[in-house]
């Protein structure tokens, strides 16, 4: 299930949503807000999404992954709004019959998400702010 939401992400519920009696493995990627970037202290992050397109792109990525690996169920939840240090912007969970495919598929999904999904992150520092990846 694909979801963009302002609510805190519930890792347990997302994991539970992909568990399948046909599966032997679940791989989960959880992004967390780090307290520094390039040695500089981060105060908080702000995320925004072009919501319908982001959902569409995430759905494409999940469908691509299902073509490439024997995935039973997949969930991608991304939070938007203001996030403090250690909060969770993204949770990806993939269930597979065997574990190797789950690791590969989960990594493919987060790598591709970061390249194509219209979601933007602003890092807020004590003395300024920057839209991540905007400039060379």
């Amino acid at each position, binding site marked *: 299930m694909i979801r963009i939401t302002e609510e805190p992400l519930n890792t347990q519920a997302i994991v539970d949503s992909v568990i399948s009696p046909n599966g032997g493995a679940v791989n989960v990627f959880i992004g967390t807000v780090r307290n520094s970037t390039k040695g500089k202290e981060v105060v908080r992050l702000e995320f925004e999404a*072009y919501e319908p397109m982001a959902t569409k792109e995430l759905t494409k990525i999940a469908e691509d992954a299902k073509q490439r690996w024997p995935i039973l169920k997949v969930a991608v939840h991304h939070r938007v709004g203001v996030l403090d240090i250690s909060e969770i912007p993204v949770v990806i969970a993939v269930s597979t019959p065997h574990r190797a495919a789950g690791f590969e598929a989960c990594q493919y999904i987060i790598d591709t998400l970061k390249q194509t999904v219209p979601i*933007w992150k602003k890092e807020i520092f004590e003395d300024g702010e920057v839209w991540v*990846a*905007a400039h060379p």
Partner: protein
Amino acid sequence: MKVKLFGITREIVGGPILEVDGIGTVGELKAFMMSTYPRIKKLNSLMVAVNSEYAKEDLALHENDEIALIPPVSGG
């Protein structure tokens, strides 16, 4: 036609929607945005989405299309 703006392009333009006229293609929209807002030229990349899909430069734009500027993404 209306152009949806997000992230740094929303901040550069100063609002979430820009009304533009007399623009025929995706390429023309990008050229117009870059010449009108020179800070947009300095971005790592600039894409345009039409009806929630990434669009090529030569795609023709129509009045009822949903058009969005996509600056470099940074989700996750």
